[in-house]
């Protein structure tokens, strides 16, 4: 059985990070992180897109279309990273019974799903002029699609419980099972892909120009900042919603 937050606090008494397992303590910290990340996200996006769209040269083989990578690649990375982060917080929540961990993974899930959707959508828009088709059953496309399904399953399951605590732990279990299965699904899809069709055109198979890489990395950091900012925003909303009867909310939020 999971320990309660109070028991965890008693047991790990004196460790600073346990203090921030309390929604009340983390609420203002989340606000600061959110503001900082919004600033980073906006400024990095402006710089990254400026370099990507106006400074980076046209690609020799793909023309202007390649510029979708400044959105596409960071979104695809974030879709994967967020799933890992989500599963991590789910594991922490199940192990220590910290309710903030579950809120954290609930806050991450919609952003992760949106990132998966963005990477699929921009990939399709890129695929049409480059591969001549919106969709191929390429290993990476297929596993991103399955990742999207895993996000949807998690979100739907969490929403299906009237008892929030039950929904927290049930969806956490499903997220962990998904995390265990992701590598298996990935490798089996790769296996299936090599059986059914020849290798498709690999973007970025040739080495990238430094300036393109720079713009892409800046955009990757912008996406990180954006995702953290949105997750923190959603986390704060969840804290207010769930802890609305707590005294500290009454005094600090409702002003």
């Amino acid at each position, binding site marked *: 059985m999971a320990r309660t937050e109070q028991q965890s606090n008693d047991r790990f008494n004196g460790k600073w990070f346990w203090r921030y397992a309390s929604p009340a303590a983390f609420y203002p910290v989340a606000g600061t992180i959110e503001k900082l990340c919004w600033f980073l996200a906006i400024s990095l996006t402006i710089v990254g897109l400026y370099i990507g769209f106006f400074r980076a040269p046209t690609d020799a083989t793909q023309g202007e279309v390649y510029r979708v990578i400044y959105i596409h690649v960071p979104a695809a990375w974030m879709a994967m990273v967020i799933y890992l982060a989500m599963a991590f917080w789910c594991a922490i929540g199940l192990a220590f019974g910290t309710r903030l961990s579950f809120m954290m993974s609930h806050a991450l899930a919609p952003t992760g799903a949106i990132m998966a959707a963005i990477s699929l959508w921009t990939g399709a828009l890129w695929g049409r002029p480059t591969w001549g088709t919106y969709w191929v059953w390429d290993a990476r496309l297929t596993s991103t699609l399955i990742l999207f399904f895993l996000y949807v*399953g998690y979100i739907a399951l969490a929403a299906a419980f009237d*008892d929030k605590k039950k929904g927290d732990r049930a969806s956490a279990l499903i997220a962990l099972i998904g995390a265990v299965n992701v590598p298996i699904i990935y490798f089996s899809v790769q296996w299936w892909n090599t059986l059914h069709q020849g290798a498709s055109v690999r973007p970025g198979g040739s080495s990238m120009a430094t300036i393109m890489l720079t713009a892409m990395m800046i955009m990757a950091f912008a996406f990180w900042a954006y995702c953290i900012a949105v997750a923190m925003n959603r986390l704060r909303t969840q804290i207010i919603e769930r802890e609305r009867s707590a005294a500290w909310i009454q005094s600090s939020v409702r002003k």
Partner: protein
Amino acid sequence: MSLRVAAQAVFRREITLFARRRSDWANPLMFFLIVTSIFPFAVGSESERLRLIGIGVLFVGALLAAMLALPRLFDEDAKDGSLEHLLTSPEPLAVLILARVAAISLALALPLALATPAFALFYALPSEVASILALTVVLAVPTLILIGAIASALLVAARGGAILTAVLVLPLTIPTLIFGAGAALKVLSGESPAAELALQAAYFLFALALCPLAAAAALRISTD
């Protein structure tokens, strides 16, 4: 010793229920028959074309048919209270769930696998393909039931279970789908299906090792 007795009792109870309520295994079989027979209306009746899609249609049809039985896993017991007995038993819950999954898998996989070669005739598949397809269905249905046990254990306490089961379970059955149908495709093109069968069996064993434990944890969560 008493663990064996308890597991046997759970197993025997499920088998008895299946024997007395034949619709529990006959309905999935009918579903399988109907799904596999409506596809030709949509794609046309040339045997060349049917042979191409037959393996996929039969395999997915068998999986969907088995999925119909998933709500049966814990829902009824939660309603009539016998789930409480399972939960309060001193024996490890995972073993009891495994016994129940074994019974349900047996009662579903056997009829579906036996029907597969017959339904393969609709799709003009050669008999050696049909028999390997039956074998892969035997491996795939228990894998699906094992994964489904987790989902239906979680959904005992949730709203809108049936559709959610599909959303949660089907993505996780993709490996068994790939390897199972892949084995049959290999036989169709005259090659050895050994590698695919081994991988499909590996995924089944992986599910066998982990899913009962996860389902037990899930059941504890949802009935907490």
